[in-house]
């Protein structure tokens, strides 16, 4: 970041340059976040467009870093389709380099309202890391899990992202069944809540906001 800051210190002396640079960054950041949130929700462009009551080609521009004419009404429609709110504010130029270096898909992800920790139960004991990931999903069933550094099992929704995580839980024989469906491996240890049988066959994962109910049996069975 030091190199970037040094370069921008010189380049930003030109007013036209710094405004064009900042505007380009805002466009790219907005487009990236819209794309990231859509993918986080497992939705296609056509699905988000349908939620907004527009055609897919009309929606596609919102995911283009070169799109430069943003209307707040349209952004509110995108926000509603993705279950988040819109926030617009002013910043100093000095914060731009750091903001740029911190930009990544994880930093742009957000839970829908339905999974927002502020409005779901047991929010007080879920670790910040879990808020970022495990609460961001779209589930109609619940698993309880034990986040690192938390006291006792937590009941919350199991996000789509967990398809890519490594996780394990006690099976009916008390041994650990382990799934390894993907390459991202922040390991968490879900424990099936008391109401569910403590077998892998009792677990179902809902994805895509109740549109689909995908049984995890196959994934689990394959891994076990």
């Amino acid at each position, binding site marked *: 970041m030091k190199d970037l800051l040094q370069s921008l210190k010189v380049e930003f002396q030109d007013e036209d340059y710094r405004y*064009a*640079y900042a505007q380009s960054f805002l466009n790219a950041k907005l*487009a*990236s976040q819209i794309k990231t949130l859509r993918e986080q929700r497992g939705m296609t462009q056509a699905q988000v467009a349908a939620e907004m009551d527009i055609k897919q080609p009309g929606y596609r521009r919102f995911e283009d*870093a070169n799109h*430069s004419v943003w209307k707040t009404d349209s952004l509110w429609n995108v926000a509603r389709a993705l279950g988040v709110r819109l926030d617009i504010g002013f910043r100093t130029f000095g914060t731009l380099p750091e903001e740029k270096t911190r930009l990544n*898909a994880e930093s742009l992800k957000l839970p829908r309202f339905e999974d927002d920790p502020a409005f779901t139960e047991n929010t007080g004991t879920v670790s910040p890391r879990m808020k970022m990931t495990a609460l961001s999903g779209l589930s109609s069933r619940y698993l309880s899990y034990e986040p690192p550094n938390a006291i006792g099992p937590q009941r919350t929704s199991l996000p789509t992202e967990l398809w890519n995580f490594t996780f394990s839980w006690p099976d009916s024989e008390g041994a650990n069944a382990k799934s390894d469906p993907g390459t991202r491996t922040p390991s968490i240890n879900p424990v099936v809540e008391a109401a569910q049988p403590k077998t892998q066959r009792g677990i179902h994962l809902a994805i895509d906001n109740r549109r689909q109910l995908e049984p995890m049996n196959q994934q689990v069975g394959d891994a076990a």
Partner: protein
Amino acid sequence: MAKWTVYFFLEGLRRDNAIRKWLGEERISTVQIAAFQDKIDTLEESGPEMVPGFISGTPVAKDIYKMKVKGNKGMKQLRPMCCRGPFASNEYTILAGAVEKDGKLIPKDIKQRAADNLRELKADPSRRVSERLTAKSES
């Protein structure tokens, strides 16, 4: 430290930065250079996923991709040609400059030029540089 690096092809005996030279020849405005530099910086800091639409998803020729820097009304539509690598997976090399007018790339032979530059670069890896678009020329 940046995770990605963007390089510019060095052309001719003088080894001029082909893209900076092209920006000068085309009299590209400060505003568009700033937008171009921003996209390069974001790509270097955060990877291509954080600048969706900047680099075409499909190649325009073998291993050649089109970059897109949109200009406002009355401005040129910049379409520099680049390749992934070619020496490492976390780098891009911008090979030649082009603009798009009425859906057509100018100059017409830009794909061939970019392919020729890529071939030259592969034969001589020193024919590229990573620097700012606004860097002062040494000559």
